[in-house]
């Protein structure tokens, strides 16, 4: 071997060991991804089934286009033996109206097979005869179809469909929907962020731009990081004692939002501080040298420069809060909320709690409903993560 080969030549063994090592490092990552993919696939698979359904009562009534929904409901309820007074008071209160309609199995539908733009009031409910997993159902499709009895039909049921998103919860898996839980989540999360964002970002600005060095800052620094790591159920206990009982707000949206806000604030403070710290000192000096006051430096220069980072932090903490079920179970997310929340003091439920409750139901088809709910949850979470990712890339700065 000539001397240059000894110095610069390729050593095939070293190369091979290197590559094997790199592959070994990738392995756990691939394993994790495979597990995630499996989980997602399984959830998707469970959320679709083949069912034999039977209509249990006579067909519903069709009302002509042009009548108001309330008028149709009024006529329908009167036809079922309610007095005019009862009907009037029921229609006046959205909550009572909903309950009454549920009890009477009255549903308003638009755009039916009888032609577009018609209202149909129906007492029609499907009853499940049999439920098969997707593979089995498709395999036995012909056989099942041949054996259908009078009034039965065979359907491929994707549990996650448009009406699942708007329906209210129900004792029957076929009519259970996630509508109230979605609205509950919107309310609770919206209010929680409304509290947590100003408090969290305000605290971060105070600590980074005003206090800066000093004992207070160091103590808060350590404690905030600890608080961010406290299990969420502890916040639930705190919320129960403080807001639900102490302030007597009951199991309503407001105390739930306050509890989630407490949970979110440390995370928001920590991420906002990091965003503020990432703003180079030279920008602050430039602003000071132009005769800006501390407030002007903080709000005209540092805050806008740190905004993308802070927004990303807020979105990520929102994503975390959306998935919280434990603290909300403690502060009274309800099992059955048949109406949409309409004020901070409404009763409510949220998506993860609803899923948790469905998983615990003993009718096996609730597993399908739960799968559909999980898909909704995942969808919302991925939208938030991609938003955070987008913002991070869109506003990335090279100083």
């Amino acid at each position: 071997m000539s001397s240059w080969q000894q110095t610069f030549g390729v050593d095939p063994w070293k190369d091979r060991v290197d590559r094997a090592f790199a592959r070994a490092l990738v392995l756990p990552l691939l394993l994790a991804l495979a597990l995630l993919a499996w989980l997602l696939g399984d959830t998707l698979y469970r959320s679709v089934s083949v069912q034999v359904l039977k209509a249990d009562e006579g067909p519903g009534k069709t009302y002509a286009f042009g009548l108001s929904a309330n008028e149709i409901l009024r006529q329908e309820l009167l036809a079922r033996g309610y007095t005019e007074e009862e009907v009037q008071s029921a229609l006046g209160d959205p909550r009572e109206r909903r309950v009454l309609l549920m009890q009477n199995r009255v549903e308003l539908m638009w755009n039916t097979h009888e032609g577009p733009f018609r209202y149909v009031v129906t007492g029609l409910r499907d009853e499940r005869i049999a439920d098969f997993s997707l593979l089995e159902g498709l395999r036995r499709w012909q056989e099942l179809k041949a054996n259908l009895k009078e009034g039965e039909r065979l359907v491929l049921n994707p549990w996650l469909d448009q009406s699942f998103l708007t329906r209210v919860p129900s004792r029957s898996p076929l009519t259970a929907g996630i509508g109230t839980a979605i609205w509950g989540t919107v309310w609770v999360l919206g209010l929680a962020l409304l509290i947590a964002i100003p408090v969290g970002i305000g605290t971060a600005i105070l600590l980074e731009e005003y206090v800066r060095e000093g004992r207070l800052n160091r103590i808060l620094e350590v404690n905030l990081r600890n608080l961010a790591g406290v299990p969420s159920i502890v916040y639930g206990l705190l919320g129960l004692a403080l807001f639900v009982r102490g302030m007597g707000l009951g199991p309503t949206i407001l105390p739930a939002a306050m509890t989630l806000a407490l949970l979110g604030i440390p995370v928001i403070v920590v991420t906002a501080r990091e965003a503020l710290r990432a703003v180079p000192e030279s920008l602050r000096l430039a602003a000071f040298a132009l005769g800006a006051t501390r407030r002007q430096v903080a709000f005209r220069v540092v805050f806008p420069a740190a905004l993308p980072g802070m927004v990303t932090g807020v979105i990520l903490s929102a994503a975390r809060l959306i998935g919280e079920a434990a603290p909300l179970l403690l502060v009274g997310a309800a099992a059955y909320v048949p109406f949409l929340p309409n004020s901070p003091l409404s009763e409510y439920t949220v998506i993860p709690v609803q899923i948790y409750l469905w998983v615990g139901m003993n009718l096996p088809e609730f597993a399908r409903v739960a799968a559909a709910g999980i898909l909704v949850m995942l969808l919302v979470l991925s939208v938030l993560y991609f938003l955070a990712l987008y913002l991070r890339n869109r506003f990335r700065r090279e100083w």
Partner: protein
Amino acid sequence: MNALDFLKDHETIRTDPVPEAEALVDVRHLNLWYGKAQALFGISVRFPRNQVTAIIGPSGCGKSTLLRSLNRMNDLIPGVRVEGEVLYEGINIYDPQVDPVAVRRHIGMVFQKPNPFPKTIFENVAFGLRLMGVKGSELEDRVVEALKRAALWNEVKDRFKKESGLRLSGGQQQRLCIARAIAVEPPLLLMDEPTSALDPIATQAIEDLILELKEHYTVVIVTHNMQQASRISDRTLFMHLGVLVEEGPTELMFTKPKHPYTEAYITGRFG
């Protein structure tokens, strides 16, 4: 007698001292401490109106510290203590009655590394003007005027309202920072090694600019570059270990330095 003791008792050597009437800034017996460490020792010097004064000296001798004490930027550093007076137009800016924020509005500063805000070119230049409450068409006019004076206008005139200041080249960014500083028309402009991060061509542009600015402004510039000091400054200060060793007209400082340290430094034999 070691070097430090010698310098502490040193009387500044002054050639052609600036008469009080011509001074925009008059520094008197300025001592400055960072915590317990003293960084400036009894500095007395006058900066004449509409002239460029260069501050030179080895690294760590207190050039930046002296510069920052002219617009009270040192106040932002925790633990700084100042003794003595800095008279600006006859007013002591370290008087307890004086608001440092107001002082900084009258005195512009340009830093070693270009530090434009992550805003548009327009908003960068408008920043100081907005702080003073300038609005509307006057704001616009003065921004354009500042960009012209900073010799940046031709390069950015078709995009200065949309383009971020961060998208400019290093030399352009530094001229943007100069435009930002002079937009409020400060009588005094402080520059701390404004060209040390730039290439020779950008440096040339900024030096030309400083010579033009002299008509309207008084400039104090810290530099490590001897040629630069001799090219653009009217007077030069030589500092060492927190002491003002010698000051005088630039030509004389560079041709007939009086103190052996000054001579050693400007001939490159220092240390």
